[in-house]
């Protein structure tokens, strides 16, 4: 599984829109393996930061923005590392026994290792634990129910490194002080199940609180809320987080990364990625260094370059087609498919919906895709919201079974985007309307006051004037329902003062001009 070191790595740090990026290195620096290169400080929450470490040794040749093979679909700041092939590591700190650490220390260690949700969401693992810290965590689920076609990275990880996964689960349980820890896996993966059983058995004398639960392998079994329901029976309400109900879900890849960080002292510099597709001669699972290019990985797997292929990130149902193979592997790149010409081909001609309801039977959220389609066509937003469009998890099950080959999920995505855009527009227009009404109001007041002012306004006393004006306005204004009285009077006073000052200024200027004439 270990891969050769590519000549160049393009290590993604994060998109500038998502937060502040602090670079620890500059172009031309020599770095060691495991060395911290940069970190992304999320702007919203002060504590959230994701550090990035060097996957191997080499020289930083550039820092630039580029697309990454993940679902963000936005340019990210990447550190381009020209590797030296020596792979010289920093001396690793001898790992501390994690059993001696407190919860906070564990979380800090997890944060410093730069571990994010490896399943695809990419949410910082430490933050997830933090978010649930102020309430009792009843259940920690390690999500090994990898359910999408093509993806087998988690399964491969478990088959080969089950002990690490189990230890990582135990560390996560300690860090989040969860009462129960469950590893959930699909019943259709006997090898991985066996490996996990052995690992749990082997470690039962140390900890022994980790359980294995098999879930039915029905897509999308690994979707967070669906998994929680099949494991615990708890149905997390729409719009709420599992943490609010004492449940925490971590991906099995994250669990292994936690094991590496705490038990071996290694930060997150690689991940298991599935390489699949008919265009590859030897599809396999690789431990891919973060930052290596998709093209490099395909080359190792013997891609047939004479044939055209289409590159898909993720599985065949929720994946994303990548425009090029130049993108770099990020921490959430779980699967890359080099699909041959006949594979994952666009579906046949789209036909009319016959309302057969296969989609509704397939929907894990119990939506009515056939109805949503009809409402999407007429852009009936109120009905779309009523029928739960925003609850759609975009798993693609409805598309898969549709006998009319209608691209339902695509249509829903567009509808969602349209509704969101509309909401933003609505909010904006409200702000503009308020401004406009305020403007009108101001003009009217100006007009009302115009005769008194034209008589003679001393140029240099606007402040005192405006104070009085403000009081008089607030006492007789009838349009004030739009604003809170106090605020309005204050603002109007200030605005009137500004206008007056300006007018007075211009008046004196014109009078001066008159004089000069």
């Amino acid at each position, binding site marked *: 599984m270990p891969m050769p070191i590519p000549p160049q790595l393009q290590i993604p740090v994060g998109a500038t829109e998502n937060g502040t990026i602090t670079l620890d290195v500059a172009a031309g620096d020599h770095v060691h393996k495991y060395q911290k290169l940069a970190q992304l400080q999320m702007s919203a929450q002060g504590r959230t930061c994701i550090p990035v470490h060097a996957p191997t040794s080499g020289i930083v040749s550039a820092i630039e923005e580029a697309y990454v093979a993940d679902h963000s679909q936005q340019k990210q700041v990447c550190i381009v590392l020209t590797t030296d092939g020596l792979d010289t590591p920093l001396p690793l700190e001898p790992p501390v026994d994690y059993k001696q650490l407190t919860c906070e220390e564990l979380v800090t260690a997890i944060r410093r290792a730069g571990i994010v949700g490896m399943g695809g969401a990419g949410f910082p693992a430490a933050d997830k634990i933090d978010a649930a810290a102020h309430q009792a965590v009843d259940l920690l689920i390690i999500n090994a129910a990898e359910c999408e076609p093509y993806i087998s990275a988690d399964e491969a990880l478990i088959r080969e490194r089950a002990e690490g996964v189990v230890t990582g689960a135990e560390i996560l349980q300690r860090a989040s002080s969860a009462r129960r820890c469950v590893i959930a896996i699909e019943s259709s993966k006997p090898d991985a199940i066996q490996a996990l059983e052995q690992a749990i058995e082997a470690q039962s004398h140390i900890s022994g609180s980790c359980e294995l639960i098999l879930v039915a392998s029905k897509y999308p079994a690994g979707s967070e809320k669906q998994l929680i329901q099949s494991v615990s029976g708890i149905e997390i309400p729409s719009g709420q987080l599992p943490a609010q109900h004492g449940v925490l879900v971590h991906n099995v890849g994250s669990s292994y990364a936690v094991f590496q960080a705490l038990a071996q002292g290694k930060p997150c510099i690689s991940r298991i990625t599935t390489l699949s597709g008919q265009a590859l001669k030897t599809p396999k699972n690789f431990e891919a260094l973060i930052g290596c290019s998709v093209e490099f990985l395909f080359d190792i797997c013997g891609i047939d370059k004479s044939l055209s292929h289409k590159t898909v990130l993720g599985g065949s149902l929720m994946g994303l*087609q990548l425009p090029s193979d130049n993108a770099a592997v990020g921490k959430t790149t779980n699967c890359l498919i080099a699909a041959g010409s006949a594979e994952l081909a666009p579906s046949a001609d789209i036909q009319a919906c016959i309302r057969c309801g296969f989609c509704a039977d397939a929907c894990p959220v119990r939506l009515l895709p056939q109805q949503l389609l009809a409402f999407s066509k007429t852009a009936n937003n109120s009905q779309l919201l009523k029928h739960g469009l925003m609850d759609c998890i975009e798993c693609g099950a409805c598309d898969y079974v549709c*006998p009319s080959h209608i691209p339902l999920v695509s249509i829903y995505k567009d509808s969602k985007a349209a509704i969101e855009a509309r909401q933003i527009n609505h909010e904006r227009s409200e702000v503009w309307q308020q401004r406009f009404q305020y403007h009108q109001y101001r003009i009217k007041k100006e007009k009302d006051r115009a005769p008194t002012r034209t008589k003679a306004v001393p140029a240099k006393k606007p402040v005192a004037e405006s104070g009085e004006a403000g009081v008089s306005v607030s006492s007789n204004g009838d349009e004030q329902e739009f604003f809170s009285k106090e605020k309005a009077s204050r603002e109007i006073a200030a605005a009137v003062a500004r206008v007056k000052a300006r007018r007075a200024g211009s008046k004196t200027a014109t009078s001066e001009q008159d004089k000069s004439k």
Partner: protein
Amino acid sequence: MSSMDTRAPFQHSGKNIAQLMQTLLLALLPGICASLWFFGYGILLNVLIAGFFALAAETAMLRLRGKNIALHLADRSALVCAALFAIGIPPGAPWWLVALGIIFAIVVAKHLYGGLGQNPFNPAMCGYAMLLLAFPLQMTSWHLPNEVVEGVLFVDNLGIPIAGAEQEILSPLSWRGFKQALLLSFPFAASSDFDIKAFTDGLAMATPLIEFKMAGHSALLAARDSGTSLFSRESETAWEVINIGYLCGGLLLLYKRIISWHIPLAIIATVLVVSVLFYAPGSVSIYGTPYLHLFGSATMIGAFFIATDPVSAATTRPGKIVYGIIIGLSIYSIRVWGSYLDSVAFAVLFGNFCAPALDQFCRPRIFGRGLSRAIKLVEASNESTKP
């Protein structure tokens, strides 16, 4: 649509409408074969005539609407509509009756509403109901080949009955039966001196339903008790065997998951429950027996093939059940208290009227919505299991 091609999902189950429709046609075969066996070629001719005019009307409408003819004809929905329509038409009905009905179904009930997937009412039943209202006589007279009704009198060359030759009831599948069925369907083909009126009058026979309607016993059981074959045309098992044929086809559809169990089960259960409620040995002549309601008429084909037409039916699961109950109640009510012999067409159309409202009001609970009680229950049960 090119941008759609680059968006997930990239994989498809491979199912398509044409496959569904084909399976549906296949599932109709047992019932059609049984009808053919008992009633002769009339039913087959009806299906063929309806199929021909359905395809012609579909092609014409697709052309007028500027659609891709090859693509839309390939979905076979017109053929399914034709088959469902034709099996309800009495054998021996003239060709123009069948053609009129199916053209009305395809042109008015289907394409004028926007084609496949847009029709609020079941097209086949629209065509059927239109004929029933406009041509009540033709639609309720079942013409069976002469031999079945009266038997054949063997005559010599001079037309004198051969002495000693017994009257014999021949199979309607014989060549003579075929010729008569053809003449009934295409009266213009008969030679000028052929008295078509006398011919048809002689053949006219009331709907089998009437005979069996008040019978109060199972012809199948009677045939078994008397030792005659179930498929013997002399026993009165025809409708029951045909219904069992459609039931088998319906089970095939369920097995293939082309229809869900909700609508058929709701209809059958409702008809059963209501007919049991009203059943009393003394009043069989008014209310009929539960068995008769299920197997003595068009209940099976209605429940499995007609009410399940997805386009015009309710589409949510709870909605489907209510839809089935409404149709079941209508079937029973129209049969028992109404003036029509059988009622599946009107019952289904009535269900179609209700379907949009059912879809709106009978929706499944969305995952994670409306949960305040459910969560408390789960949490309570978790609490109680904790040590």
